[in-house]
């Protein structure tokens, strides 16, 4: 059987709102994924290191602080530098529409806003991981 999807859920920066990230984490776990949650107040470096150590398919960042344009591209860069090019970086939170294109161009996916149903997030992750595994399978 294919190994379950492993995902690191991270809060980075000073943002202390963790209701959403915990709801999503539990929904993903109930959907059969292996979920690791970092807790609050991580630096991008800490979150990426945890993702590397945990050998995850996905790093999901919850961000409601407004610092998404600073933190997310930085995380993508760190991930690429560490060879995590086949790991999906995705985010959810309060990200204005106009910033989403900027982030997508820098290979940050997901970008789910308030009101998103957890099943839509689950579908998205399953599709993306399937694509990523398809391209890197030996």
């Amino acid at each position: 059987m294919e190994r379950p999807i492993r995902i690191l859920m991270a809060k980075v920066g000073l943002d202390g709102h963790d209701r959403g990230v915990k709801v999503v984490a539990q929904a993903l776990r109930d959907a059969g994924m292996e979920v690791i949650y970092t807790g609050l107040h991580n630096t991008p470096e800490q979150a990426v290191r945890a993702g590397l150590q945990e050998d995850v398919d996905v790093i999901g960042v919850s961000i409601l602080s407004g610092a998404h344009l600073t933190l997310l591209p930085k995380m993508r860069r760190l991930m690429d530098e560490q060879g995590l090019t086949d790991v999906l970086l995705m985010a959810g939170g309060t990200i204005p529409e106009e910033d989403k294109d900027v982030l997508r161009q820098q290979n940050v996916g997901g970008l789910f806003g308030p009101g998103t149903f957890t099943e839509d997030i689950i579908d998205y992750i399953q599709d993306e991981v399937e694509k990523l595994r398809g391209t890197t399978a030996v």
Partner: protein
Amino acid sequence: MEALTDETERKAMDYINRIDKMGHGSLLQGVLNGIDEGFFQREIAQAAYEYQQQVERGEQTIVGVNQYAENNDHKIPILKIDPKVEQHQVKRLQDVRNSRDGAAVKRSLDALKEAVENEKNAMPYLVEAVNAYASVGEIMDVFRAVHGVYREPAMV
């Protein structure tokens, strides 16, 4: 109405009794143990998850989200902070650090550390440190060095 009030009261008492039990008869100790063990965080997260599931199943209504939701392109005016603000503030801090009396800052922070370690009233020492132009970060580093930093148990 009365029945609902009774029900709420009963549920609240259930929690109070559980917390009391966690503290082996002391409510305060129960609360402290509960925080250490992540009891409150877990209860809140569980309630949030159950609520989200009810919303997704349509058992809870949020107008505009799962009821009467319209797709429209409302332009929301967003306050954007120019990144220059950060550079400006960093420069101001550097200017302060360059112009203040470094020895006085060190003295005030050492005195603060001594006071915090010995559980004295820290306020006069804080005022002293601020007057010497110690930064909030430098002052908080003193508390962090003595007490450490609380990290919530990360669990889901």
